[in-house]
């Protein structure tokens, strides 16, 4: 409150409000964020919640002024942000279209001209003259979207609302948005959905707590995002440098068995830290058995950033029998295709002897960093697969056979 009043009075007296200096309890919502978008280009903004994406949109929309720096926009700005803004529940759909159009900056002539298109797009039908409070949420949102999408902006700001409603409507939304793209409209999109970002943007800016963490192609930026996200979760409080060295978090249970180290290997058996989705991967466990151990079993579990089990492999479950361990040796878990998507995963190792007594347990035996590779199929993991295509060449051009 104090700051608000002080800023207002300083502005009036033509004094600078010294906005480049932080006062108590203030923080930088955005810091050193700089980018340029050319006409017709589509820029994506991604990042964790609260990293400042919506603030960037507000700056571009002219709702806030920057405290340091400059924002320059050429052309009319439209926003798919608060869809249905200004909609009053007591007004009918028709009245709300006019109201919303006026608020979004359209002229009366413009709304009149596009009215029929808007109504048809929204699929409201007979409910046009009913008060909006009787609409279902879907209808409400469709109407709001229909008005916003007919705005004819040069620059379109989209905040997570790329397509709403049921499937047929969503398809219509995407089609209309694609038309806008073809008309050389410049886009700035904020989204959490990797697929949306990848399909619709040329470049992506990754924001992390108000700062630009990465600028680049959609694939790279999303990789970076997923990776940094799980990095934080898998190793809370630690930074990247520590992760590399933290293989020392051993918890040996028995004195006669010691895990020397766990090494991650690629297909050439070279040590690596970062792997791509779908590539060959191996984890080698090197150990020293100080006493003879009969019938041991090795179990390896992969945990993701949310501490969910992704995969578990145990030698005894797979029918792999080790008769005895004595002295030094190694056990390697191999796969031809690493199914894990971008992120950081934790390897949990358990070693037991024949009587199921624990010999060693390491909850942070290793960290597998997965970056790049086969991204953007939807799903929790990547399944190695191949395709077989069969076409009946004789039947091309003839009538279908009766079944």
């Amino acid at each position: 409150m104090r700051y608000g009043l002080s800023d207002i009075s300083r502005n009036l007296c033509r004094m600078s409000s010294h906005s480049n200096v932080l006062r108590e309890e203030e923080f930088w919502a955005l810091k050193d964020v700089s980018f340029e978008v050319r006409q017709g280009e589509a820029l994506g903004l991604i990042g964790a919640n609260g990293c400042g994406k919506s603030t960037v949109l507000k700056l571009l929309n002219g709702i806030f002024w920057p405290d340091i720096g400059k924002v320059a926009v050429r052309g009319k700005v439209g926003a798919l942000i608060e869809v249905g803004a200004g909609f009053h529940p007591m007004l009918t759909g028709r009245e709300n279209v006019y109201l919303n159009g006026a608020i979004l900056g359209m002229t009366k002539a413009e709304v009149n001209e596009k009215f029929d298109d808007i109504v048809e797009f929204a699929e409201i039908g007979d409910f046009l003259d009913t008060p909006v409070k009787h609409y279902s949420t879907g209808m409400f949102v469709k109407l709001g979207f229909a008005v916003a999408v007919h705005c004819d902006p040069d620059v379109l700001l989209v905040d997570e609302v790329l397509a709403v409603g049921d499937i047929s409507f969503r398809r219509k939304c995407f089609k209309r948005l694609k038309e806008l793209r073809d008309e050389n409209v410049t886009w700035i999109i904020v989204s959490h959905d990797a697929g949306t970002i990848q399909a619709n943007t040329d470049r992506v800016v990754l924001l992390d707590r108000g700062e630009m963490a990465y600028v680049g192609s959609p694939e790279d930026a999303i990789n970076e995002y997923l990776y940094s996200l799980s990095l934080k979760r898998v190793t809370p409080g630690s930074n990247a440098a520590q992760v590399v060295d933290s293989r020392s978090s051993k918890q040996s249970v028995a004195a006669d068995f010691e895990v020397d180290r766990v090494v991650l290997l690629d297909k050439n058996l070279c040590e690596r830290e970062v792997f791509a989705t779908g590539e060959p991967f191996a984890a080698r466990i090197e150990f020293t058995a100080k006493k003879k151990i009969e019938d041991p079993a090795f179990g390896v579990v992969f945990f993701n950033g949310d501490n969910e089990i992704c995969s578990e492999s145990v030698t005894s479950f797979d029918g792999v029998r080790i008769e005895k361990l004595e002295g030094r040796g190694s056990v390697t878990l191999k796969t031809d295709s690493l199914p894990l998507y971008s992120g950081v995963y934790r390897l949990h190792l358990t070693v037991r002897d024949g009587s199921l007594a624990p010999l060693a347990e390491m909850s942070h035996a290793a960290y597998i960093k997965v970056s790049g590779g086969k991204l953007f199929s939807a799903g929790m993991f990547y399944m190695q697969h191949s395709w077989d295509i069969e076409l009946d060449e004789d039947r091309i051009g003839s009538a279908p056979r009766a079944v």
Partner: protein
Amino acid sequence: MTETDFTTYEPDNSLKKGYRSLFSEIFSELNRSRWLIFQLFKKDFVALYKQSFIGVLWAVLLPLVAVGTFIVLSGAGVFNVGALSVPYPIYAILGTALWGLFSTGLVASSNSIVAAGPMITKINFSKKSLVIASMGQALLAFFIQLCLVLALLVYYQVTPSPAILLIPLLIVPVVLFTLGLGFVLSLVNGIVRDVANMVSVVVTFLLFLTPVLYAKPTTGVLAALTSYNILYYLVSVPRDLILYGTSDYLKGFLLSSAVAFFVFLLFLAVFHLTETRVAERV
């Protein structure tokens, strides 16, 4: 592609452009927003009256009750209305109609920014239009009460002066004064929410202090205060002109109108320079 094609936002934006371009900016914005103002007014109107049974008549009912009370009180001799050449009801209702422009207008406009809610922080549109549209309610109420006055004039067979045709002009000063105050109060209310409540209280209080429903006192503190009370001139002189064709306080009226005009321009500029600060904190 020149610099002027770009819309730029910088820290302390309006300072850089200087005061001179200020008013051309403001008035071109208002010109563009004419239809928006109408739409916003329509929304308020429909929202207020759509599901009510008495509907628009509320604009008449409330002042009637107030005036009716005063009529009863004056009949009982509780206060002195002075020598009037028109029946008290006409005098009183015309007075409350003109006062209503100020009171209803001020309360509505000081609330207008906050009432718009999330629109302010999500969409960039002309916020001045919100304040101006909120005056629409007051203007409509005035018009309805005016019709009531006309009906009473017919009933009591009183002929008003030709100045009655100048009503649209005569109410300009009080409307501008209200708008000016409304601009600044709506902004401050966005940051310090008590303001709107204080306004309601103060306005009611002012009604008692300003000789609208009773005659101007000739002695005492109140007499002295009243001669400096802008609202008194802005409300009672139009009434005198409409009913009698002349007024003793024309000079005061012209002076007050000048003040009103100045207040309007000043606070309109203030609003323009500081409206984004409110978006940050509303």
